[in-house]
C-alpha cells in the first residue's frame, strides 16, 4: 500500500507544487492521474518514490516512511517510468539496458534471464534485444524503459504519459501489459492526457488541479462531473460528450453502453434530444 498523508511539497526555492495530498493506493489497483500540465501530477507521483521528499506530511510505501529511505532504496518497491525514455537509456544494447539493474543488484543469472524474458515479453520488444536502444524507433524505446522497470518486479509501477506517440499496436501492448500486471497483484499508476485511454482501461481516476487532488472517483463519475472537468481542464471522451448532449442518464462513457442506451431508450432520448435541438 502507498499512502500519502497530508502531504505538501515545496521546491527548495519555496514554490509550492502540491498541497494537502491524501491518497491511498492499494496493491493490485490501477489508478489514472489526470489534469492539465502544471496541475502537480508529476510532482505528486514523484513523492511516491522519494524523488520528491514531502515538505510536510508523510509518504508511506509498504510500511517504509520515504523520509527515512533513499530513492534507490524505495526503487525496490516503486518502479517509475519517466516520460522521455532518452533521459534514462545509456547501454549499448536493449538487452543490456533491461538487465543493467538486475546485474547491479547482483541477482543470479537464472533469475536475471527469467525477469528479462518476462519483461521483454510483456512489452513486446523481443525482436530488438541486440540493437542499440537508440536505433529503436521512439515509440518502442518507451517500451524499453518500461521493460527496465518491469524487470525489477516492484509491487508498484508508475507510468508517466505512456500513450504519447503510441499507435494502436502500442496501446494494445500497454493494455495487455496492465492486465497481466494486475493479475500478478501489482499496482499501476498512470499519468495521462489520453482520456479515451482512461475511459477504456481505468476504473479509478484521480483528478488534479491547482496543486491539489480535486476528485478521486470512478472514471464515469469523473467524466460526468462538470465541475471537475472544468477545473481540471480535461477533454472528456467523445462518447461521454454525445451521451450528455443527448441528455442520456447513467454516466455513459463507453461505446457499448451508449449503443445499449440508444437501442433501449430510443423514445426517451429523442424527446430529450429534439427538445435540445429545437
Amino acid at each position, binding site marked *: 500500500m502507498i499512502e500519502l498523508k497530508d502531504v505538501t511539497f515545496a521546491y527548495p526555492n519555496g514554490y509550492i507544487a502540491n498541497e494537502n495530498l491524501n491518497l491511498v493506493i492499494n496493491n493490485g489497483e490501477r489508478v489514472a492521474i489526470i489534469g492539465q500540465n502544471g496541475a502537480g501530477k508529476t510532482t505528486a507521483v514523484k513523492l511516491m518514490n522519494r524523488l520528491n521528499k514531502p515538505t510536510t506530511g508523510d509518504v508511506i510505501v509498504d510500511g517504509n516512511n520515504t523520509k527515512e529511505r533513499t530513492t*534507490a532504496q524505495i526503487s525496490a518497491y516503486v518502479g517509475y517510468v519517466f516520460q522521455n525514455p532518452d533521459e534514462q537509456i545509456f547501454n549499448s544494447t536493449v538487452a543490456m539496458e533491461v538487465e543493467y539493474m538486475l546485474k547491479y543488484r547482483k541477482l543470479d543469472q537464472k533469475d536475471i534471464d527469467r525477469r528479462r524474458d518476462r519483461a521483454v515479453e510483456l512489452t513486446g520488444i523481443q525482436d530488438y534485444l541486440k540493437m542499440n536502444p*537508440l536505433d529503436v524507433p521512439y515509440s518502442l524505446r518507451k517500451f524499453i524503459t518500461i521493460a527496465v522497470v518491469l524487470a525489477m518486479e516492484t509491487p508498484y509501477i508508475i507510468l508517466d504519459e505512456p500513450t504519447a506517440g503510441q499507435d494502436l499496436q502500442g496501446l494494445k501492448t500497454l493494455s495487455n501489459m496492465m492486465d497481466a500486471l494486475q493479475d500478478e497483484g501489482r499496482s499501476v499508476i498512470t499519468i495521462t492526457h489520453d482520456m479515451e485511454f482512461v475511459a477504456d482501461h481505468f476504473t479509478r481516476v484521480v483528478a488534479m488541479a491547482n496543486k491539489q487532488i480535486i476528485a478521486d472517483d470512478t472514471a464515469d463519475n469523473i467524466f460526468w462531473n462538470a465541475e471537475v472537468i472544468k477545473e481540471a481542464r480535461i477533454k472528456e471522451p467523445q462518447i461521454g460528450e454525445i451521451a450528455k448532449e443527448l441528455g442520456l442518464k447513467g454516466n455513459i462513457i463507453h461505446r457499448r453502453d451508449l449503443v445499449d442506451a440508444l437501442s433501449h431508450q430510443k423514445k426517451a432520448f429523442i424527446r430529450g434530444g429534439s427538445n435540445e435541438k429545437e
Partner: protein
Amino acid sequence: MDYEFAYSFKKPQLTNNWILDMNPLSKLNLLIILFIIPITVQSWKWNVMIIIFYFLVALVAGCFKRFTRLYLRFGLMVGLLLFVLRALFIPGENLLYKLWFINITQEGVDSGLQFSTLVVAICGAIILYSIVTRAKDFMYMIEKLGASRVISYVILSSFQSIIDLGEMSKVILDSQRARGIETEGNIRQRIKAFIPILGPLFLGAISNAEEKAIAMDARAFSMPIKNTHLCHLRSLPVGEKAILIAANIAFIGFVVWRLMA
C-alpha cells in the same frame, strides 16, 4: 499588444548607462590597455590602483555586486593562492620564518605580492569585460566585422546548452535514482553512477542536436545571403571615438616613456 516593446527594436538597444552602452569593441580596446599597463609597469602599487579602478568602473556601470562577487572569489581563490605559494616556496637570503622544512623568505613574500597583484590586475580586465559586455552585443560586432552568423550561433548557443544540459542532468539523475542506481553511497557506487548520468545526457544531446539542425534549417539558417538583425547597436558616437583616440595615444606615449626610462 505591447507595441512599445515591439517598436523598441527600431532603435539601438540602449541601457542609458554610458559604460554599458559603449560599443563592445571600444570597451575591448580600453580594457586591453588596462591589461597591458601592469605588465609594462611591474609595480604592485600600480596593480592595486588598477584593481581599485575596476571596482569603480563596475560601480559606475551599475554591476558592482555581480562584479565583486566574481572578482573577490577569483582574488581569494587564485590571487591569494599565488601569493601564499610564492611566500612559502620561493627560496631567498632573508629568512623571515621557518616552519618544518618550509622557509619563508622576504624574497618569497616580495615576489608573491608582486606576482599575485599582477595576475589579479590583468585578470580583472577580462572579468570586468565579461560583466559589462553582453555576449550577443559582442557577437553582433563580430558579425559586423564580417564573421558568419554560424559563429555567433555556436558561441551563443554554447551558453544556452550549458543551462539546458545542466537541467537535463538533474532530470537524468532523478531517473537513474528512480531506477535504483545509488548516487549517495560509497565512492565505488558513486563512480558507477557517472556513466548512467553522462551517457543519456550526451546521447540525448546528440539526438537533440540533430533535431535542432533540422529546425534551424527550416528557419533558413543555411541561407547563403547576409542576414539582417532585429537588434542593432548604435554607430560610434563622436565622444566615444574621441575618448578612444585619446586613450590610445596616451597609452602609446606611456609605453614609450616606460621603455625609455
